[in-house]
């Protein structure tokens, strides 16, 4: 496929919100999320369950449940608006210019069709190609994702493959049309550690080779550290911190990010048997409107000002590093330090 002569930004999302009506009021699982991904870049979205990371990706793909309502200032794929363009146009884009890899390959592959059928369909839905050409591309990609005897695999059904092979098939399927953007939602969570390393290797190699933008959604900080160019940390529906992998892991600014990094045992660093850090409390309910910082109820560095107003995602001292915390924000930070000194 010829390289499109566009700029290097693949995805630009500004101020995305998702609202879902629930019995108790309005659930706001995604609030004010802004993301961008460049060509050849891997953005990792990391957070705990319920933080809105998966719904963010579904909102970008326009795959939210029908009663969910999304609003957004801007959503562009390689410079073209992809927000509210209608189901017809969107389904032309999905699987063609952006595609998705899900967590559990067994449930996302159709058990009633062969691998070959499903791979060919992904291409023939979007391109006028003969089934021979589709078959050829399928074999080419299966080989690319490290499946041996690719031609003979085309006639197999998903249940005949192991978990690792199925995930490779999913990746091949996502690549059939040569997408600009690939969204991988927990692609290795259901796999063994040894297979996980192989799949991550593969994703990184393919992304370099095909120069795609990739959003990788995960809860595993180890995965993030090893594969991400940039990281967005989400908590309770919001992005609380974004920066390069180096900035996030070596100089985290937000108290939540720091707490999260303290929670995991690191071989060679954490003393064996020593106590691990913990984040006390639980995630707040996202039903209704919330005043102030979402992390306020669990933050070890809480101040009065944190509960007063909503906090914006603002740049820190380092370029490209933004953080949603008063501690790190210019005049407020100074004010809070002063306040802290008094109290």
């Amino acid at each position: 496929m010829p390289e499109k002569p566009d700029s290097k930004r693949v995805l630009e999302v500004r101020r995305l919100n998702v609202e879902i009506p629930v019995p108790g009021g309005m659930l706001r699982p995604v609030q004010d999320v802004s993301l961008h991904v460049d060509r050849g870049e891997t953005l990792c979205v990391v957070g705990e369950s319920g933080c809105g990371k998966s719904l963010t990706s579904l909102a970008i793909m326009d795959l939210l449940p029908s009663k969910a309502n999304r609003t957004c200032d801007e959503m562009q794929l390689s410079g073209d608006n992809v927000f509210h363009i209608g189901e017809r146009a969107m389904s032309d884009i999905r699987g063609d210019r952006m595609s998705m890899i899900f967590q559990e390959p067994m449930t996302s592959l159709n058990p009633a069709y062969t691998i070959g059928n499903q791979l060919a369909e992904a291409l023939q839905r979007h391109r006028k190609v003969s089934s021979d050409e589709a078959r050829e591309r399928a074999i080419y990609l299966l080989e690319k994702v490290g499946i041996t005897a690719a031609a003979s695999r085309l006639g197999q059904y998903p249940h005949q493959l192991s978990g690792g092979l199925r995930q490779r098939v999913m990746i091949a399927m996502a690549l059939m049309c040569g997408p600009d953007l690939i969204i991988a939602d927990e692609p290795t969570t259901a796999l063994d550690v040894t297979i996980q390393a192989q799949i991550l290797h593969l994703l990184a190699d393919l992304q370099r080779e095909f120069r795609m933008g990739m959003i990788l959604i995960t809860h595993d900080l180890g995965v993030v550290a090893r594969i991400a160019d940039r990281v967005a940390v989400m908590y309770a529906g919001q992005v609380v911190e974004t920066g390069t992998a180096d900035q996030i892991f070596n100089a985290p600014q937000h108290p939540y990010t720091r707490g999260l990094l303290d929670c995991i045992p690191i071989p060679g660093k954490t003393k064996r048997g020593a106590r691990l850090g913990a984040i006390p409390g639980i995630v707040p309910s996202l039903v209704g409107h919330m005043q102030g910082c979402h992390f306020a109820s669990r933050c070890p560095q809480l101040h009065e000002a944190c509960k007063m107003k909503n906090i914006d995602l603002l740049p820190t001292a380092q370029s490209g590093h933004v953080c949603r915390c008063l501690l790190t924000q210019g005049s407020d930070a100074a004010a809070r330090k002063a306040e802290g000194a008094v109290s």
Partner: protein
Amino acid sequence: MSDIVLEARDVTRTFMISGGFMKPKRPLHAVNGIDLRIRQGEVLALVGESGCGKTTLAKMLLGLLPPTNGSLELDGNPIETMDRLRIAQTVQPIFQDPYSSLNPRKSIGSIITLPLKVQGDKDPGTWRKRADEIMELVGLPRRVYNNYPSQLSGGQRQRVAIARALINRPRIVICDEPTSALDVSVQSQILNLLQDLREELGLTYLVISHNLAVVEHMATRVAVMYLGRIVEEEDADTLFDTPKHPYSKALLESVLTPDPSLGVPDTHLGAAYPNPLDMPSGCRFHPRCIKAMTHCSTIAPRKIPFGDGHVECHLYDENEGKGMLAS
């Protein structure tokens, strides 16, 4: 030795698997000749990929599944001669998923006190008091006594599962992936809790996990399983500092520490996990082993004692693999 609380000697468990319509059943050797000793107060971790037989072994140690061959002893008494209630007084499990291991129709109080009822505890008047004690010990607020599992968070549910396991004061707790269904911040709370309880109550743990970072953090001894065999067993420090078996090395290399300066490791493990119905000949690991020698595919390696532990690999067999050791 008297401090061995749980011992498995040459234990094998075979399942007969349907070979398909009109075809004979085929044997699947889930656990294939395992020797294991758990000493009082230690934390033995069992690691390996899914399908290697970890959970089957745990079920046998709990007395839930009889072994096909071999013997299992609890405090020196053969498990098969003991009755269920007695085993349950000594060994208790904590399962992976607190969402499915708690009965959603029962209140937290009745879940926690059920073991007392089952054991025929004589004094129902004290149940509430004992439940309160154990709930405090595992960090559950008293007010959840009358709640239902659906009203609790994942971490709280796992605390309920721990409270239920501990209310009869067992000496051995078998934790099957105790934190893998939990979020990172909750995982650390549960790991801390398990450590505290171990010191406070003098518990012995068998921890089954695929998360080696967790294992390294908790374990005092580690047994690495591959296709139904323990290929290496060693105290935790030695195993993590100098793993011997190529499979242990590959497993350790595939641990993703959160260090952005390192890339994704290449474990050289090649093809996927072999089909346990169709085991490779010789050393079972040889098709994936980067150090495989010619005789690995024909001769099964012996168990070679090493300090306090053992390894099953031709590389360390003095009679044949001397030259390879140096490389």
